[in-house]
């Protein structure tokens, strides 16, 4: 009975969250997918998926060792580090974009600016999530693994990562979704090459809602599989 109630409650919240998507079914006129809309829209999909993947690679490569470092520090030091990463999350995207364009002005409107901005807006989410994930792995397990002759890399691969994987998957998913959907900061630093959020804005301004809907649908279909696949992989039981 309790579980049925819990399921009904979760279902209700999920329905509420998904309700805005019903807007896709509303009458906004015939959807437009002529070359004027389709070509830049398809290009924006390529830009978003390609460059966001690069950004996520950077976030994971930089963020994972940083998260391990922070997770193994004392309370006082880790609070300082967490404050640093919270700042990048805390700043309104538009303000962050303005600050980035002031400080890195020469590289705006380039793929590097696009990737750099995405790293800025998402790395805080990844690092803070990853710190929580590594916190869940008892230090003594790692020490016992080391005493069994395992090098630090082997301890990470065989103990720390498998035990933290679910939390890391959540952290990566949140970072991916945050980066892919980023509009405010990217609009300032990398209007070109246009990613999907900027192109949605352009389509809305140039052609109205009928040109927004198809790209919005594609956005949802293309953005979801990666974080979902990461969750799926994380659920699988790892082996030694």
């Amino acid at each position, binding site marked *: 009975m309790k579980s049925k109630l819990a399921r009904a409650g979760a279902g209700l919240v999920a329905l509420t969250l998904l309700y805005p998507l019903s807007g896709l079914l509303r009458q906004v006129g015939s959807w437009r997918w002529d070359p004027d809309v389709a070509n830049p829209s398809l290009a924006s999909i390529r830009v978003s998926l390609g460059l966001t993947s690069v950004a996520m690679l950077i976030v994971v490569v930089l963020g994972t060792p940083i998260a391990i470092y922070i997770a193994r520090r004392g309370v006082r030091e880790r609070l300082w580090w967490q404050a640093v990463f919270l700042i990048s999350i805390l700043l309104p995207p538009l303000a962050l974009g303005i600050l980035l364009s002031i400080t890195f002005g020469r590289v705006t409107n380039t793929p590097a600016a696009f990737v750099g901005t995405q790293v800025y807006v998402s790395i805080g989410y990844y690092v803070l999530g990853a710190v929580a994930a590594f916190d869940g792995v*008892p230090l*003594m*397990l790692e020490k016992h*693994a080391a005493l069994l002759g*395992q090098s*630090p890399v082997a301890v990470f691969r065989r103990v720390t990562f498998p035990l933290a994987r679910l939390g890391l998957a959540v952290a990566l998913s949140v970072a991916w979704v945050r980066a892919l959907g980023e509009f405010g900061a990217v609009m300032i630093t990398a209007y070109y090459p246009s990613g999907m959020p900027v192109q949605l804005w352009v389509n809305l301004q140039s052609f109205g809602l009928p040109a927004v809907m198809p790209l919005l649908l594609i956005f949802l279909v293309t953005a979801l599989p990666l974080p979902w696949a990461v969750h799926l992989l994380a659920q699988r039981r790892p082996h030694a």
Partner: protein
Amino acid sequence: MLEAHIVKRRRDFTVDVHVELEPGRCFALFGASGSGKSTVLSCIAGIEQPDDGFVRWDGVSFYPPPLPLHLRRAGYLTQDPYLFPHLTVEQNIAFGLSSARSAAESEWLARLRDSLGLGDIWTAPAAQISGGQARRAGVARMLARRPPLVLLDEPFNGLDRQLVRELLDALVAWRREIGFSMIVVDHESEILERLCSRVAVMARGRIVQEGSWTAVRAAPVDGLLDSLLRPL
């Protein structure tokens, strides 16, 4: 040979202990709870860093500077065996062996499995076995690498007497076969006496008495030790 001088500051006192252990010998550290016994062991294993002193094993310096844990050829077992919960019992026990297991290693694992009664849970996830089974698996995992030095920190705490007897017998037998040196910490003299003929008694971070069990029992250094040695 193990030579160690452990200095480690605690809240109420400083642990300051010299330990020397000949190859293949056993040494018991006995004393009341909170006397600093576990600190000595964890400093030798490398779980904690001493504040001062040294630890040398067979000519290799463990400290100072601190030798990385994976380079210390020591087995360390505590009350919590710290099995890896995402692995099976077999994967836990073979954890310290190379992935390309030799025939001799496989045979050795099979002997550990059979002698410690782990056959029924061999493929079970470590997270799903009982506390007693986990303790057996912990002993097997520690011995799987045939460590030349074994450090036991009250690994029998909270176990029923039958299981303690089985584990003690197994340890005595394996020590005879492998020939490892061993330091055992416990607050139950009966357990220590089964494993080691020599004992050092600790109180407030210092060794206050050392010798054979007979000598220590005959003339305990103080009333507390006398009380600890007496049966309930």
